[in-house]
């Protein structure tokens, strides 16, 4: 039943992409592959299920319970069909795109079951089999009749797990299975996977950039960088005493580690202060059709303070930010900046009041403009000369030559630095960061957070920092506002909210931030 990887390597069109990896995974054991984007962890996973992109090829051997996987024969669909699903299943990151939107969830699970058995099932048996699989992932039978868009992200990922496991594989490859989910869902999904794995004696390869996911839920770990394994060993041992400097850097960058140790990137300032607030929102209300997304929300930001807003997707935190920025029009309530009331919409606002840094660095820069042109335009808005472009790049830690490059030539972290420079060019008094580090790798995320903390020190700018992850927010915020279902459920100085969460939802978020397992009986770590 053991899974054995023997010198598994991936060759790209321009040479080796992943260098040979050997490993053994016992039944019921989990091997973690950790690394940032571009480290080769996903290519490795895809080579085991024969889904490498065109022009890529795998070498080496993989055997699952004694059966050889045809890793070398990429195009041989007949051979792969005997393997995919039956021996190996793949669970993908994004539950929003990995299910077919036009088919009911039950059908999608049934396909895997029928595919594995090689025959169509009669109606009743098919239904019973689907409901049994749904029950295994703690979903009610009615989900079988639902379309994916009718379910939440967490439920969708459960359906995806049920579909992946419906064929009773011996090896499950989970590629960032919880990255796209809210903090409160992440732990549940991981614990569910762990439970099923133990029940079925399933071997699992868990791929993640997030040490929090790996900690306590995996047996062995391979740390990968640039297509190479830089460190390997038992998970607990590697995390406790990392030998390679890269592993150490990854652990230090992990916001959960910081949350447990209480480390911060900037000293927490007293945000309550007697000073007049820079920004004061009162009773801000907004509805999209019949759905109220903001229900009488109050928010206050002191000059030079970093205020974090935490909540899951749909809590209204982004809508609040967009109302403040004037990108959405609030239905009611007042937004006052420096004593001046702002009417809804962009029309009443000037660029030197506030700027936003968005979540996705890949779509927030105009792909057709050079970095220099993007920054020069933003500087021009404030009447500043384009000769200041090198200075702006330097301020966000990029070399001046970057002015000539286009966004496509930059990494995600570099693009986010450019976005920050663009936002700072009109010298705004408030910088809104809407999930600005969520799409970045952990180590890059730490760099960007440090940059924001430094900019606050140097420029005295106030920052409204929005995130779904309390562990990230607590690294730099002075005050935290917790939102849930369009309402503010808790607000206060950062340490107070963390140490004495008053609201039940906040307690859940704090637990998720510390990656405390929802099921303490786990017994690991």
């Amino acid at each position, binding site marked *: 039943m053991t899974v054995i990887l023997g010198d598994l390597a991936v060759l790209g069109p321009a040479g080796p992409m992943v260098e040979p990896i050997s490993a053994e995974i016992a039944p019921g054991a989990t091997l973690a592959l950790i690394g940032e984007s571009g480290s080769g962890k996903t290519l490795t996973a895809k080579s085991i299920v024969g889904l490498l992109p065109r022009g890529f090829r795998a070498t080496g051997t993989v055997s699952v319970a004694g059966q050889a996987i045809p890793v070398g024969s990429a195009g041989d669909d007949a051979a792969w069909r005997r393997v995919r699903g039956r021996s190996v299943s793949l669970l993908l990151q994004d539950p929003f795109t990995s299910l077919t939107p036009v088919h009911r969830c039950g059908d999608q699970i049934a396909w895997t079951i029928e595919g594995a058995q090689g025959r169509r099932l009669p109606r009743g048996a098919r239904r019973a089999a689907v409901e049994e699989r749904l029950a295994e992932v703690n979903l009610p039978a009615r989900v079988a009749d639902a379309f994916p868009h009718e379910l939440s992200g967490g439920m969708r990922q459960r359906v995806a797990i049920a579909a992946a496991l419906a064929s009773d594989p011996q090896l499950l490859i989970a590629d960032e299975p919880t990255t796209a989910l809210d903090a409160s869902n992440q732990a549940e999904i991981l614990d569910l996977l762990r439970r099923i794995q133990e029940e079925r004696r399933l071997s699992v390869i868990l791929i993640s950039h997030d040490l929090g996911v790996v900690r306590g839920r995996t047996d062995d770990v391979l740390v990968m960088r*640039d297509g190479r394994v830089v460190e390997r060993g038992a998970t607990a041992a590697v995390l406790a005493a990392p030998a390679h400097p890269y592993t150490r850097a990854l652990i230090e960058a992990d916001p959960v580690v910081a949350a447990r140790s209480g480390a911060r990137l900037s000293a927490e300032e007293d945000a309550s202060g007697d000073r007049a607030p820079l920004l004061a929102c009162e009773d801000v209300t907004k509805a999209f059709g019949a759905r109220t997304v903001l229900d009488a929300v109050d928010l206050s930001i002191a000059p030079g303070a970093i205020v974090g807003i935490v909540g899951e997707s749909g809590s209204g935190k982004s809508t609040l930010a967009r109302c403040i920025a004037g*990108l959405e029009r609030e239905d009611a309530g007042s937004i006052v900046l420096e004593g001046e009331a702002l009417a809804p919409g962009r029309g009443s606002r000037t660029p030197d009041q506030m700027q936003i840094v968005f979540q996705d660095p890949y779509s*927030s820069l105009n792909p057709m403009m050079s970095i220099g042109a993007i920054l020069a*335009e933003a500087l021009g808005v404030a009447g500043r000369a384009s000769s200041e472009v090198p200075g702006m790049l330097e301020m966000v830690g990029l070399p001046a030559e970057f002015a000539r490059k*286009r966004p496509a030539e930059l990494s995600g972290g570099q693009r986010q630095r450019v*976005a920050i420079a663009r*936002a700072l060019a009109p010298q705004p008094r408030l910088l809104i960061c809407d999930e600005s580090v969520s799409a970045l790798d952990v180590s890059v995320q730490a760099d960007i957070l440090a940059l924001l903390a430094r900019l606050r020190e140097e420029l005295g700018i106030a920052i409204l920092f929005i995130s779904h992850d309390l562990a990230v927010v607590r690294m730099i915020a002075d005050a935290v506002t917790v939102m849930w279902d369009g309402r503010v459920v808790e607000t206060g100085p950062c340490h107070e909210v963390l140490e004495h969460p008053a609201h039940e939802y906040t307690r859940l978020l704090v637990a998720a931030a510390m990656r405390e397992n929802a099921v303490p009986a786990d017994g690991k770590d």
Partner: protein
Amino acid sequence: MSDIRVIGVLPVRRRRRRLPIGVGVAMGVLALAMLAAVLGRLIFSDAMHQDILAATLPPGSDGHPLGTDELGRDILQMAVAGTASALVGPVIVAVGSMMLGVILGTLAGYERGWLDTLISRWTDLLLAVPVLLAAIVVSGVMGGGYWVTVALLIVLFSPSDIRIVRAGVLEQSARPYIEAAQMLSLSRWRVMFRHILPNVTSLVVTNMMLNVAFALVAFSSLSFLGVGVAPGTADWGRQLTDGRAIMFQNPAAVFVPALLIVAVAVCVNLVGDWIGQRLSQVGEEAR
């Protein structure tokens, strides 16, 4: 567990861009056609000269490699001299409808509201008009002529451009880089034409090239029906019409202009597709 071997430094992957053979040939054909369009009428200034004594000569006759038509006009000379009218009109139509499409499509897609409704209903109305039928009717009423046809086709071709540009602008408008531009309080014109438009160029250019091919066929059809160019003008569609009567005496009188129309239309499409692909790759890399 086994040791980890080092294979070597990963080389940087560079994409080589090679011109596909078909596109290269198509470009060559179009280059020749453009040369003929510019020089054709200068070299064969008397291409339309009639010589009844040399009427309906088969291909290979002395001094007339492709023979002559009923009126003794040289087929080869007419075909070369006709290139100008075959290319100039379609290119002007394609460029003209593209400009209409870019301006109206961008306004409709970015401004939305009543302007979008007005422009979109206008395009719906125009799309319901059959192009050739309308051209025949207008020519009948206004007396026809080359430039009337050009103006009419610009208007009738514009709905597809407007719709395509509008769809592209709608897609781009929702992206964060546009909101970032709005955060800088840039003027709407700057957002529309400096930020959005360069990102829909691939759509616009591909569609323009397709329109050149469509317009070429439309022009030739109209000339064939006798409502395009004036009689006595060198034009492929006209030549096709005139050659029908002597198809069996001199097949070249029909097949030469027909093949030229097909060849140029196909080449324009090939090159247009290729340019569109290249341009959209520039955008893809950014994603």
